[in-house]
């Protein structure tokens, strides 16, 4: 797509009104992971170059200056720590309460444990490897345990999902099912309850005290596409009663369900989004941590789409997004070498209600705070 400079200018002018804050950066290599490692820092990782760098970046301080924002000129990312991975990074998770991340790669089924340099050194050092104790596909999905003892829940197919303690490498838990469904994502609800979503949209709810899992298959009419999920919970340790699950398909369907009743969705929608990409690799749906009932969707194209699900019902309709971030397509820095640009990942800021970070296949990474037209305030 060729951006005319007029279109880019138009978006630039528009951006003065539709964003409170906007920062546009260019990484050397694109990332498909953005993971919060601290209140002001994120980890990103290369998936395309020979060296596959893992970087911990400090967010622009201007975002945190509060009342003194005007006096803070710092609007750049600062590289805090860096390391090299021997394979392109598929999944990267920060371990709850520790200065440590775990990655999986595209060439193998192993997980690698990394120490993000303490104090003096700026090196991200590999401190361990976890080899799953069973046959596994490459690029395992990972979720951090939520207790003090550092652990990860990981899997490539439902039957190889297990929980491993980081320090000892001990397998704390393994599922007792022989389902071969491929895992698209997993997450802990509290210290023992967890949810796994399969590529075909089936949800599994398990408990680390019991190898059996309950599973919830999708309606026949919804099968045939690739699904990802997002869990909304208010704290690291939540009561399942307070949790909501959203599932997104590569055809643009969204199902919102109560974790207590995954058989029947409470809301659903057919989004007006077509997947341009041959790969479902970048499909991503997330719940806003502060705003009620808001979710963000990306991976279809070069945009991030934000929806308010409050008005959705059990009858599927096609809602309009409350905001669309078009910066990756339209900023002056956007690359136009003929390949289709796609947003590879996005995350919400933990406490700023409308701030998101998004990354795209051209190496761009944006930090943006959008204005809700319904509540206009500066």
């Amino acid at each position, binding site marked *: 797509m060729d951006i005319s400079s007029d279109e880019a200018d138009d978006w*630039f*002018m528009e*951006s*003065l009104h539709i964003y409170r804050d*906007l*920062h*546009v*950066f*260019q*990484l*050397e290599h694109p990332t498909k992971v953005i993971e919060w490692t601290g209140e002001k820092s994120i980890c990103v990782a290369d998936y395309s170059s020979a*060296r596959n*760098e893992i970087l911990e*970046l400090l967010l*622009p301080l201007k975002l945190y200056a509060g009342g*003194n924002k*005007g*006096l*803070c*000129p710092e*609007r*750049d*990312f*600062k*590289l805090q*720590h*860096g*390391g*090299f991975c021997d394979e392109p990074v598929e999944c990267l998770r920060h371990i709850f309460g520790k200065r440590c991340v775990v990655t999986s790669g595209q060439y193998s089924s192993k997980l690698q444990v990394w120490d993000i340099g303490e104090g*003096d*050194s*700026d*090196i*991200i050092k590999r401190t361990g490897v976890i080899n799953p104790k069973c046959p596994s596909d490459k690029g395992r999905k990972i979720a951090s345990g939520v207790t003090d003892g550092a652990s990860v829940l990981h899997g490539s197919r439902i039957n190889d999902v297990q929980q491993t303690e980081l320090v000892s490498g001990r397998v704390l838990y393994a599922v007792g099912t022989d389902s071969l469904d491929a895992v698209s994502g997993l997450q802990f609800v509290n210290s023992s309850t967890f949810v796994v979503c399969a590529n075909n949209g089936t949800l599994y709810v398990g408990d680390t005290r019991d190898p059996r899992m309950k599973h919830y298959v999708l309606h026949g009419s919804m099968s045939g596409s690739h699904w990802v999920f997002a869990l909304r919970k208010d704290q690291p340790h939540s009561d399942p009663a307070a949790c909501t699950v959203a599932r997104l398909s590569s055809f643009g369907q969204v199902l919102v369900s109560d974790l207590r009743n995954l058989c029947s969705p409470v809301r659903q929608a057919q989004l007006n989004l077509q997947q341009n990409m041959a790969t479902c690799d970048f499909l991503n749906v997330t719940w806003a941590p502060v705003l009620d009932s808001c979710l963000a969707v990306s991976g279809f194209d070069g945009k991030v789409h934000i929806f308010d699900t409050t008005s959705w019902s059990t009858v599927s309709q096609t809602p309009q997004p409350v905001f669309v971030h078009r910066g990756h397509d339209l*900023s*002056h*820095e956007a690359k136009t070498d003929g390949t289709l640009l796609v947003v590879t990942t996005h995350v919400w800021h933990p406490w700023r209600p409308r701030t998101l970070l998004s990354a795209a296949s051209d190496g761009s990474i944006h930090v943006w705070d959008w204005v809700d037209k319904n509540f206009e305030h*500066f």
Partner: protein
Amino acid sequence: MPDIKVTPLGAGQDVGRSCILVSIGGKNIMLDCGMHMGYNDDRRFPDFSYITQNGRLTDYLDCVIISHFHLDHCGALPYMSEMVGYDGPIYMTHPTKAICPILLEDFRKITVDKKGETNFFTSQMIKDCMKKVVPLNLHQTVQVRADKRSFLNLCYLKYKTAAWIDKCRPDILITESTYATTIRDSKRCRERDFLKKVHESIERGGKVLIPVFALGRAQELCILLETFWERMNLKAPIYFSTGLTEKANHYYKLFITWTNQKIRKTFVQRNMFEFKHIKAFDRSYADNPGPMVVFATPGMLHAGQSLQIFKKWAGNEKNMVIMPGYCVQGTVGHKILNGQKKLEMEGRATLEVKLQVEYMSFSAHADAKGIMQLIRMAEPHNILLVHGEAKKMAFLKDKIEQEFNISCYMPANGETTTVTTNPSVPVDISLNLLKREMALGGPLPDPKRPRTMHGTLIMKDNSLRLVSPEQALKELGLSEHQLRFTCRVHLQDPHSDTDTLSRIYSHLKSVLKGYAVQHLPDSTVMVESIVLKVSSSAEEPDLKVVLLSWCFQDEELGSFLSTLLKKGLPSAL
């Protein structure tokens, strides 16, 4: 092997007093001479005692090169040249030469007048220092004190994109590590913020003051505002103080090659200051009601028009001041950027600062991606990182070493890094000489060994040529002196002189295969250019005297022949 030695004199752990000493080919060069803005005592200057403990630096330094006009890179220059003492050349680009004295004078005024310091350089010292400056153009090469090294490729690294650097393949690339660990927000986003702030103020009826330096960013911001005003159909006036326009036009003509495309295009199409929405400022306008934007000098609000306007507008919270860069300690700019709400003015009057203060940095430094691109394009053999702690640069060092397979050094202040280089000096060789030297043959015993080549190196202007001696003599209009050696070898031989000569001929012909051995009718034998004659005296007809004569070029062969003949002739002949 020639080494290059690099010693930072003042990069230290924080920003400031950039000063790097380079010893190359027996010459000493000082790169930058900056001031550390955080100190008020001698620590703000680089430590020159490393060069010499006492006295002037002139004898120890061959030249000084200043990269750009920021005070942390040139602030100590007048101190070094006039108070410590240095009379050699100081190289910098034309724009730097134009701006340096202005910044230095401003800085001096603030430090002496406002802060009351006494041990500081004077206005005259700044002028005397600038007299030693030799301004250069981009990519210009200069011979430093008749040394052949083309060292100065003044590529204005901080301010240009990597596209401007050609593959100069330096032995060492020196870069500040602070840039390499930053990922910069796009220029467009900075501009966006600027427009947003200005617009917000104007919308609520406020006045916006933008203190600027005489040129540079001011012009770009003007174009930005003009476009924005046009687009949004805004009516509020934008003023540009006239002091700026005159100076700026003058500087602009000087710098037109240094600026970016947009400004150049605009400048060419029309006079910079014939904007539709931007007008010249008059002092009285500051009291006009309603919103407006004013660009005024000086940039740090330390004197003059910008300070006057500031005093008038500071009390109203609807107004705004946008500071576009770093302000020196002691200035009003510095104080308000530190959040000060009450300022003490002349005559004990206090000024309440109620207007909104915005700090927007527009200076364009390179960042991580930029540095890597630069290294990729320039292809240095080694990299030196300054301005950072070694422990905090370990990742960067690894990254550079892995990606480019070159060494990365991080010396501390006063620590010397020695880099061994392998310089290649390209020399043109004349075709004739090459052909001749490649021809087969030569003195025994081993034609396969690397042999000395005879030629003449002519060094003229910047070229080095290797030609044959005859050609060199011809070019220089000199006549050649022939040097011939003669030696006599005594042989016992009962034959006649003529026969002895024939025997010598046969002998040499069998030994010297591949050489031109001739028996000439004038009773001489010639081997290459060596002449042999046989004679004897009447008293002793059997004692033959073999006369050998050769020219300097055939010395080796000649010596060989004389040694051979001294051994006598084989009886089989």
